[in-house]
């Protein structure tokens, strides 16, 4: 984590109550757990965290079918594009939820940033599965409240961000977890879809760590701005091909992955 982001978190924790009310952030004293439990990040970001991700390719299945992904190099290109668009948006939402912004408003913000129903449904389904896992691993009143308000599932990054908060993690931690999952999902899926060498796929992830760091920090800074400027400060990067392919894939009669 960069010093800059640490400072940003401090700033966030000290921000004015007036601004917090506008986006529903809790009183300042509730922000104190920030940074207490970094090890929980390993649990949350573990690919085996039982929240349903294994059944989703993050758009890799249609990209493989279209010939866009055919080897490690093209997987890396795809993942880089996904990370800086859908990944950045998701990381911003997660960081904001971890910072204590109103998860229901964030859920609406996620809807506004997800223009196709196939991806909204996937995000909610995965959000519900994440909620189940999170309430079992880091029970909290905030998770219970969101589960009650969105029984069919809130957008997954919002739930993950709130889970991170319940686990005592920072907004930056939440952004890292979401950003990493955003590319590890497709990489794992491509190992299955193309029988790609798993060492090559993991090397792809390693080559993207600078990008990951950048996206996580950018998302966290945006989340901090959102405290004072409103949710419009959160990233809204669009990826037209991911949107188009998601709807096409949802209509496939036979497929290996749910998305």
């Amino acid at each position: 984590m960069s010093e800059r982001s640490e400072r940003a978190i401090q700033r966030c924790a000290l921000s004015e109550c007036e601004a917090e009310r506008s986006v529903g952030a809790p009183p300042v004293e509730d922000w104190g757990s920030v940074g207490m439990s970094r090890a929980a990040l390993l649990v949350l970001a573990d690919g085996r965290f039982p929240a349903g991700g294994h059944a989703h390719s993050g758009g890799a299945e249609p990209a493989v079918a279209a010939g866009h992904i055919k080897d490690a190099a093209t997987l890396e290109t795809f993942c880089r594009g996904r990370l800086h668009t859908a990944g950045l948006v998701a990381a911003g939402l997660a960081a904001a939820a971890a910072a204590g912004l109103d998860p229901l408003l964030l859920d609406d913000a996620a809807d506004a940033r997800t223009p196709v129903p196939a991806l909204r449904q996937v995000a909610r389904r995965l959000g519900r599965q994440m909620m189940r896992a999170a309430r079992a691993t880091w029970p909290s009143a905030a998770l219970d409240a969101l589960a009650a308000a969105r029984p069919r599932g809130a957008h997954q990054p919002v739930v993950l961000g709130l889970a991170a908060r319940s686990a005592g993690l920072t907004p930056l931690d939440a952004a890292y977890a979401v950003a990493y999952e955003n590319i590890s999902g497709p990489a794992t899926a491509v190992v299955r879809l193309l029988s790609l060498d798993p060492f090559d796929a993991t090397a792809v992830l390693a080559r993207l760590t600078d990008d990951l760091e950048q996206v996580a920090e950018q998302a966290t800074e945006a989340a901090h701005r959102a405290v004072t400027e409103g949710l419009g400060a959160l990233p809204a990067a669009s990826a037209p091909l991911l949107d188009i392919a998601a709807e096409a894939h949802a209509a496939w009669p036979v497929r290996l992955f749910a998305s």
Partner: protein
Amino acid sequence: MTRTVPRPVAPQAPAVPAAGLRATARIVARAGHGGTSRSNGAESGGGTSRLPVLEGGGPFALRRVQSHADQARVCLVGAMSAPLGGDRLRIEATAEAGASLRITAAAATVALPGRTGELATYDVHLTVGDGARLEWLPEPLISAEGSDLRMTTTIDLAPTARLVFREEQILGRSGEHTGALRSRLTVRQAGRVLLDQETAYGPGAPGWDTSAVLGGHRAVGQFLVAGPEFTDRPAEVRLLGGAAGDGAAQGVLAPLAGPAALATVVAPDGLSLRRLLDQAAAG
């Protein structure tokens, strides 16, 4: 460790430039007599909408064109080359309650590099009142090599407002690379954000030219229709154009989470982009 990834420029408003054009165009359409009382919109009601405000300026010349039924029509005519780097351009258009307004353009807008390498801004703000209808159907925005444009489009819709909106971006003129083009589209409906999207293409936008975003395409566009009629009958998802991977234009028309439908299209060029957006518009 040296960072190899280009850091994108932060999206905050840049420092005030030393030089460059500042211009704001304003358009207001007001319902003709008898138009405001109709709850089902203005298409069939009252007289033709009037244009009490029609102010051009700078590069914007506004031309009143032949109205159609009750709809007032305005054509945006580019009076000079703009936006250039350093320019600050803004258009505000309002269709007041019950009014009907259509805005088109005579030609494509070309974002060009300025003398100082500074970025240009181009802000569009559309407001549509209850029972009003606004059609915003300009020609494409072309991002020329070396240009750097930040565009924002902010749309405020009253609960029973109707909107027809088209946006087309062409990345680079024929045979050249694209400039830097960052564009945020925010649509609010009855105070709630219906759509919030930012596109970022060209130098300084990591990942833009990848198979997750444009897949080699150089033209991208959206067609948005919003209105209360979608509340009970959301649009059906419709795939547009060719199969993925064959390089042809492709897109999808899909319902948003609120009462609106959005078509998103990527295409190798402006012509095939328009063709597919027209298909989406034809329903």
